C-alpha cells in the first residue's frame, strides 16, 4: 500500500491498576481499505477500540492520526478529528425522528437560533439516497431494526465526514439480508476512500468483506496479513495460539423416547402450524433467518409468549400456555437469546443468578438463605468453570463468555429433560464457544433433549442431529443430519415451500443476491 495510513497505533498499552487490559496493541488503518480485527474475548480488541474512540487514554505507545500524534481526552475530541465508532447495539433516541437522531447535539440553526429543520431533513434524504437505504427521515427510530439503527449511525458518521469508521461486531444481531446491505454500504464507504475497521467473530464475513486482517491475542498484537494470503484455519490457530481440531464436536448419540411434542402451534402474525418434536439424546436445530419466528416459537413453548391454538406436550403430558413456572416444573430449561435482558439479572450476584431456576428446592422450613444459594451455586459454577473470584460478584462484572456459562449453569442446575438454547454462542469467544458445544454434545449423550436455535449455519450443521428450517413463521423443511447442507438450509430459509432439491443450487445464489440488494 503506497498511501500513508490514516490511523496508526504502535505498541499501545492500557492498564487498570494491576490489570493489563492491553499489553501491546498495534494497528494501521489505510484509506480505501476495510481492516478486520479479530481475537478471542479478552484479547484486547474492545480496549483498543475504546482508546481510538477517546473513551480510554493509553498508558504508553504511539497514536498517530493522519501522520500526526494525537492525544484524545474524550470521545468528542476523536469525533471532531473524524473517527466514528458504530457499536453492536446503537443507542438512539427512540422517540425522536431519524433526522433528529442524525443531527443530535449539532443541529444547524438559522440567524435567530431557530433549528433549521428543512436543511437537516434535506441532508438526511441525501444521505439515505447515497447509502441506498429507504429510511423515512421523519419516522421515530423506535421500532426500527438494529440494522436500520446502525445505518442511522453510519449516516451520522458520514454527515460528520468521518475518515475512520470502526464497527464493533455490527453483524451479531443482523439477519443475512441485513448483513449484505451493511456490507454494501461498507464497501461504498471504502470506495470513497475512508478507512474502515471491522470486528467480528464470523470468519465468512471477514473473508467476504475485508482486505486485511489483524489478529490479537491476550492483549497483544499477533499478526497482520492480507486476506488473500491467509485462511480460516490459519487465523483460528493464531487467535487461540493452538491448533483447534474441530469447532463443532458432536458426539453420536442414541435417540430415546420423545421428550417434546408440539402440535399445530399458532400465533397470528408471528408463527403458524408449528409441528415439531425433540427426542431424548437429540440435538435439534431450529434454523432460519432472523425474524423467521424461531425465538418466538421457543418462547411460546416455554410459556413466556402466548399462542392462540395448538398444544405443547412434554413427555406426553400437555403443558399450560403462558406459564413458565409450569414449564420449568415439567422439566424445560430455557437459555434465552439475550442473556443481558432475559437470561440474567445483571445486578444480582452470580450465586443468585445460578440458583434462579432451582430456588424453590433450596427452601428449608420456609426459609431460603444466601448460604444455601451459595452452596448450590458453588457446584454449578465449578462444573461450568465460571471464572470469578467470589460468588457474590455481580453478573455484570463478568465477560460475555462467563455470563453465558452462568446462564447455562442456572438451567443445568435445574436438571431439565428438555433444554432450549437460543443462540448458544452469540458474542462469545472461540475457546468458550467450543467448550459450550462440547458440553451440549455431552448433555445429549447423557439423554437430554436439546432444541437449539442458531443464526450461525456452521453451528447448526455441525451440532444438530436434525434441523427444522423456518421461513416467515412456518416450518418449511425438516432435514436429517445428512440432508442438511448450507444450500438446503438456506434454500428452505428463503422459500415458503420446498420443491425437489435437485434444481436448488443455482436458484439459491440468485435468491441471496436478489434479497441482498
Amino acid at each position, binding site marked *: 500500500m503506497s498511501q500513508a495510513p490514516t490511523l496508526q497505533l504502535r505498541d499501545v498499552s492500557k492498564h487498570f491498576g494491576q*490489570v493489563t487490559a492491553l499489553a501491546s496493541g498495534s494497528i494501521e488503518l489505510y484509506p480505501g481499505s476495510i481492516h478486520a480485527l479479530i481475537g478471542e474475548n479478552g484479547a484486547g480488541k474492545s480496549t483498543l477500540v475504546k482508546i481510538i474512540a477517546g473513551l480510554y487514554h493509553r498508558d504508553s505507545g504511539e497514536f498517530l492520526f493522519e501522520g500526526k500524534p494525537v492525544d484524545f481526552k474524550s470521545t468528542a475530541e476523536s469525533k471532531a478529528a473524524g473517527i466514528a465508532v458504530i457499536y453492536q447495539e446503537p443507542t438512539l433516541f427512540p422517540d425522536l425522528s431519524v433526522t433528529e437522531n442524525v443531527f443530535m447535539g449539532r443541529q444547524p440553526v438559522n440567524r435567530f437560533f431557530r433549528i433549521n429543520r428543512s436543511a437537516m431533513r434535506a441532508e438526511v434524504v441525501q444521505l439515505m439516497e447515497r447509502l441506498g437505504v429507504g429510511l423515512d427521515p421523519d419516522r421515530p427510530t423506535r421500532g426500527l431494526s438494529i440494522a436500520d439503527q446502525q445505518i442511522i449511525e453510519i449516516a451520522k458518521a458520514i454527515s460528520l465526514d468521518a475518515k475512520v469508521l470502526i464497527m464493533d461486531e455490527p453483524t451479531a444481531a443482523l439477519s443475512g439480508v441485513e448483513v449484505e446491505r451493511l456490507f454494501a454500504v461498507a464497501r461504498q464507504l471504502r470506495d470513497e476512500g475512508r478507512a474502515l475497521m471491522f470486528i467480528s467473530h464470523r470468519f465468512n464475513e471477514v473473508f467476504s468483506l475485508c482486505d486485511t486482517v489483524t489478529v490479537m491475542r491476550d492483549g497483544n498484537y499477533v499478526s497482520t496479513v492480507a486476506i488473500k494470503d491467509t485462511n480460516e484455519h490459519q487465523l483460528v490457530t493464531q487467535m487461540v495460539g493452538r491448533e483447534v481440531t474441530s469447532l463443532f464436536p458432536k458426539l453420536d448419540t442414541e435417540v430415546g423416547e420423545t421428550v417434546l411434542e408440539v402440535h399445530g402451534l399458532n400465533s397470528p402474525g408471528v408463527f403458524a402450524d408449528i409441528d415439531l418434536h425433540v427426542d431424548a439424546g437429540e440435538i435439534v436445530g431450529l434454523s432460519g433467518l432472523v425474524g423467521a419466528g424461531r425465538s418466538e416459537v421457543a418462547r411460546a413453548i416455554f410459556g413466556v409468549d402466548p399462542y392462540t391454538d395448538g398444544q405443547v406436550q412434554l413427555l406426553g403430558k400437555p403443558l399450560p400456555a403462558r406459564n413458565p413456572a409450569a414449564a420449568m416444573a415439567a422439566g424445560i430449561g430455557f437459555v434465552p437469546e439475550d442473556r443481558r435482558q432475559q437470561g440474567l439479572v445483571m445486578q444480582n450476584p452470580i450465586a443468585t443468578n445460578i440458583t434462579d431456576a432451582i430456588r424453590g428446592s433450596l427452601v428449608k422450613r420456609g426459609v431460603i438463605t*444466601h448460604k444455601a444459594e451459595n452452596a448450590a451455586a458453588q457446584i454449578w459454577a465449578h462444573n461450568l468453570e465460571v471464572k470469578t473470584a467470589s460468588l457474590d460478584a455481580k453478573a455484570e462484572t463478568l465477560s460475555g463468555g462467563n455470563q453465558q456459562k452462568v446462564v447455562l449453569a442456572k438451567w443445568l442446575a435445574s436438571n431439565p429433560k428438555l433444554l432450549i438454547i437460543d443462540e448458544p454462542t452469540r458474542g462469545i469467544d472461540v475457546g468458550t464457544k467450543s467448550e459450550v458445544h462440547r458440553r451440549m454434545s455431552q448433555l445429549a449423550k447423557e439423554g437430554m433433549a436439546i432444541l437449539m436455535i442458531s443464526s450461525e449455519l456452521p453451528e447448526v450443521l455441525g451440532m444438530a442431529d436434525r434441523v427444522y428450517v423456518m421461513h416467515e413463521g412456518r416450518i418449511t423443511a425438516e432435514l436429517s443430519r445428512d440432508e442438511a447442507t448450507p444450500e438446503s438450509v438456506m434454500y428452505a430459509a428463503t422459500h415458503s415451500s420446498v420443491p425437489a432439491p435437485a434444481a436448488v443450487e443455482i436458484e439459491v445464489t440468485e435468491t441471496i443476491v436478489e434479497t441482498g440488494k
Partner: protein
Amino acid sequence: MSERVLDKTYYADYAKPLWRRTLINRESAIVVLLFAVIITACTTVPNFAETITIYHILQNYFTALMLALPMCLVMITGDIDISVGSMVGLSCSLTGVVYNAGGPLEVGMLCGIAVGLLGGLVNGLLVTRIGLPALAVTLGTMALFRGLAVGMLGTTTVTKFPENWTMIPQLEITGTGIPVVMIFYVLLAGVFVWLLHFTTFGRGIYAIGLNAQAATFSGVNSGRTRTIAFVLAGGLAGLGGVYWTLLRGVARGDTGDGLELQVIAAIVLGGVSVFGGVGTIWGSIAGVLLIGTLANALQVVGITADIIKIITGGLLIAAVLAGSLITWINNRRAKLDRLSTDGD
C-alpha cells in the same frame, strides 16, 4: 455432564469480609445516623431522654412504620403506591360510618381493613393486568379514595367510640414507654423480613425490580408478585386507618393526609431505590425512626413544623446524594474489576 459433589469449595462466597458487608452500606449509615441523632438529642435537648419521648414517637409514627413494610416491597419491584395515605383516610371514614350507622365497632374496623385490601387489589390489578404505570394509577386512586373518604362522612365527624377499643393504642409496656401495639409491629416486621429476605417470593421481588424480563424468563410470576405487594400495602393502610381512628377517637375524612410521601421519603432515606431492585426492611424501618426522632427532637426544642419539613427534606436529598455518590464510586471500582477479568 453429571453433577459432581464438591469435597472442597472452589469460590469464595463473598468478596469482602462480613464486617465490611454489614457495616459499609446505606442501611448501616442510617442506623448510625439514627443513633447519632438519639444521642445528640438525649444530651442536648432538655427532657428528651424520657420514656415519654419513645412513647410519643412510636405512637405517632406507628402507621408510618407499618406502611414502610409493604411500601418497601412495592418500591423494590419498581412500582410505587402513593394512594396509601388516602386509603388510611378511607378506612378511617368507613370505620366511623359503619359505627355511626349502628354497627358494632368490630364490624366497622373489619370493613376498614377490607376496604384497604380491596383498594390495594384495585391498584395492583390496574397496574399488572392492564399495564398502567403505578405512579399514574395510584395518583388517580389517591384522589379517588380521598374523595370517597371525605364524601362518605360529609361534614360530620364520628366520635365516642367504645373505650375498651380506643384505649388499646394508649397502652404502654409498663416502665418502658413502648406502646403495647409495638409487640404486634415487631411480629409484623418479622413476617416482612421473612417475606422479602428469606423466601423465593422475596427473591422474585428483587429480580422484578432489577430486570422484569429476566425474572419472567426464570419463572417468576411478576404480575402476581406485584399485585400481592399492592394488596399488602392496601391492607396495612386499612389497618393504619383503624389505628388512627382508635388513637384519636375520631373518624375524619382527612386522616392520613400526606402520609404516603412521609413513608416514601423515609424508606428512600433508608436505602430503598426509587428505581426498584434495591432496599431492605431494616433500612426502611430505620429511615422512619430517623425521621420520627429528628422531627420530635426538633419539635421539643421549639422549631416550627415548616422548618422541620425543610430539615427533613434536606436530609433526604443529602442521603440520596450520598447514596448516588457511593454508587458512582462502586461502579468505577466495578468497571476496573471488570477489566481485570475481561480485557476485551
